[in-house]
């Protein structure tokens, strides 16, 4: 008899008596499943309700984004990145634009930087709101979803007013911004902040001290900081495990070093800590936006960038702190108008690797909670 933990759940034809053991149930969760946040397929091996092991099958949303990049110019590829993490499209755009800017050795003017920070942080709030709503929904609380969607709408309205799109915004251009902030942009943002601050308390009121919520999240999906680092897990998941690593502070990009904000960390690395970390992150984002919107300087919004971009031969890796973790772009230029290779390091894809480790010996219901707490977006996992 082989050790059941070593058999791949995928290998259903294994002529092994452990598989025929009536105690074990192989269950296929997804790709069409309400709680896998898209088209993630998880093959679970269960002993009753206990998870013996699981395997993620991905690729159902693969669109070959990285390959597409090789056939597009640098500018043309910009809107494609929005389609990866579609709930945080602005962050994706920021990462790509900054990477190409680094390659071209240009820098966006200060005014553009400020507006970029405001929009990115708004997007971080929107992404966390969507995470909170769906995560709570997975755990069975249906009401927070509607609250967060109601408030997320206000952010999307600002995006829509700014660039015409709500989700896949294509807000930034390489070298700065295409659009000047519309009249009343600052007022809208300020209004949103004063509207949103009490709303965070409202979310917390529903969940933070809710007995059932505590029971469902405390001690569930625990991962240590060491394991996080070993697996390359980043973002709120890493911070909730007690590792103070935020690229906004560690390797400041855009003009984050001008702003005063804190990095929340957790202690236990469980689902509850991740929830708390993200809630505090929303408050910190509000803080950043408050500072940024006070100090938007006057000036141009676009740096001098050639119409036909031909970056010098070379390669660059640039990463930003997306709402879900470290979002990195590795771009190789061969000196032509099209990148030779674009490799994206998506936070969701890397974080998803921790799922098996976090779910072992937990119950089926916890798998759902852990998928929710990892905050994955399948568009980004599969690209």
């Amino acid at each position, binding site marked *: 008899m082989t050790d059941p933990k070593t058999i791949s759940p995928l290998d259903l034809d294994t002529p092994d008596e452990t598989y025929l053991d009536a105690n074990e149930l192989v269950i296929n969760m997804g790709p069409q499943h*309400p709680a896998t946040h898209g088209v993630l397929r998880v093959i679970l091996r269960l002993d009753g309700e206990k998870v013996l092991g699981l395997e993620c099958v991905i690729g159902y949303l693969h669109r070959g984004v990285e390959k597409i990049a090789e056939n597009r110019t640098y500018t043309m590829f910009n809107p494609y990145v929005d389609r990866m993490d579609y709930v945080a499209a602005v962050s994706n755009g920021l990462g790509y634009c900054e990477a190409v800017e680094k390659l071209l050795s240009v820098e966006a003017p200060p005014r553009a930087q400020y507006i970029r920070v405001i929009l990115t942080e708004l997007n971080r709030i929107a992404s966390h709101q969507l995470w909170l709503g769906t995560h709570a929904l997975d*755990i069975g609380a249906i009401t927070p*979803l*509607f609250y967060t969607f109601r408030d997320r709408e206000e952010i999307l309205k600002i995006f829509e007013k700014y660039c015409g799109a709500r989700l896949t915004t294509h807000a930034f251009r390489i070298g700065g911004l295409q659009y000047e902030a519309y009249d009343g942009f600052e007022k809208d943002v300020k209004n949103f902040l004063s509207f949103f601050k009490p709303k965070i308390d409202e979310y917390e009121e529903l969940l933070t001290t*809710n007995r059932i919520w505590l029971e*469902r999240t405390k001690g569930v999906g625990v991962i240590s900081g060491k394991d996080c680092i070993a697996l390359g897990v980043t973002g709120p998941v890493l911070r909730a495990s007690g590792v103070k690593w935020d690229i906004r502070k560690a390797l400041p990009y855009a003009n984050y070093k001008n702003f005063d904000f804190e990095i929340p960390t957790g202690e236990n690395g469980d689902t509850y800590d991740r929830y708390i970390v993200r809630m505090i992150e929303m408050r910190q984002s509000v803080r950043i936006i408050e500072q940024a919107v006070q100090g938007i300087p006057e000036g141009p919004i676009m740096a001098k960038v050639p119409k036909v971009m031909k970056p010098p031969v070379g390669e660059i890796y640039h990463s930003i702190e997306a709402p879900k973790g470290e979002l990195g772009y590795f771009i190789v230029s061969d000196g032509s108008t099209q990148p030779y290779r674009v490799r994206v390091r998506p936070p969701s894809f890397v974080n998803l690797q921790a799922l098996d480790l976090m779910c072992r010996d937990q*119950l089926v219901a916890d798998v759902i909670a852990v998928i929710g707490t990892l905050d994955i977006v399948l568009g980004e996992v599969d690209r």
Partner: protein
Amino acid sequence: MHAIIDYIQSYLGSDQTPGAAGNWFWATVYVLLVFVGLSVAVIAMNWLERKILAHMQVRLGPMRVGPHGLLQPIADALKLLLKEDIIPDGADKVVFWVAPFIVVLAAFTVFVVVPFGPTHAITDMNIGILFMLGVSSLSVLGIVTAGWASNSHYPLIGALRSSAQMVSYEVAMGLAVVSAILMTSLHGMGFYGVGGLGTADTGTLSMIGIVQAQQEQQMWFVFKFFPLGLVAFFIFAVAMVAETNRAPFDLPEAESELTAGFHTEYSGFRWSLFFLAEYSAMIAVSSIAVTLWLGGWLRPFPNALQGATWDFIFSLFPGVTFLFLGALCFFNTARMPKHPLFRIQTLGLAGFGALLALIGLVLLVHGVRERVGDIFWFSAKVAGFMYLYIWYRGTFPRYRFDQLMTVGWKVLLPTGLGVLVLTAVWGVF
């Protein structure tokens, strides 16, 4: 012919339920009335749940079919009836076919003994409450067979969860019920069934008898032996939510984990049977709670606000409630958009309001208002529980399976035992 009319008339004026009086005609009429009333209640509950939940969640709920979506449940029912009837390939066809009927049968049969008034029950059994608990727990059979016959993993897990859950919560539920039954025989003088002053000294299991005991003792059991009755009531109130598989104990059909649990593979009419059963089971357990602890058909404050004047005031409640609902409809009619497209909807709402107001007026008529009080108060109390169900669903996350078992076995069961022992002791001293 005369014999038939005599037979029908012979029951009128009886102070027994038609079943107990042995009158087949009226028993059949009552069965039909209960069945129709229950179906209407389920339809209304469907609409109300969607509307109330929607308003808790900053949305509007159904608004298109009929004014304020009033016809939505009917449209849904039609849709379900017209849907293709799918039986999965690997399913055990006979069992698959039978399962929903078992569930529905169990859910409807319990209403045989539900007392809507001193004579308004299909029958009065001397073991009424036992019958109710016994029959309602039969539904677990239907759920297990449904899950097993589907030949699919999610339904199987859902069914297993469901059976474990229902069986373990029935224990706590039973203990709470027993402590309420003990109260029927206790009058504070001391002994069980051994003489005493005035009140019934032998306890009763009859649903009607339990309410009458509360009437005689001038106390709803929820307040009796404070706080014992209250604790027992709370145990029951928690266990009944688990028993009916509703949030926050809706694990068997935890949609985010098991898509739809035991009825994942069901569709169309069969699915609607499960739906019907779930809601009628909710109404059934709420009726048990109302009967045992909240005085059944008795109006509120039966001992504090006594006298003919108060009786008169309370007898106006049913009519006034319907008039209020009618007024609400008229108020919303005035708020409807004035666009010609909304004309039919506006008229429909006004018509519905007029119907409700008419019912309200009829219920105010002397001779009617004295007779509907029982049914009204019973239904109002049950409706309160239904609102609680919706409220729970809007606010609570879902328990995990092991936590659910912990709550059932480690919290509710010991508490229930304690309450039972204390109740018995309290009665003696």
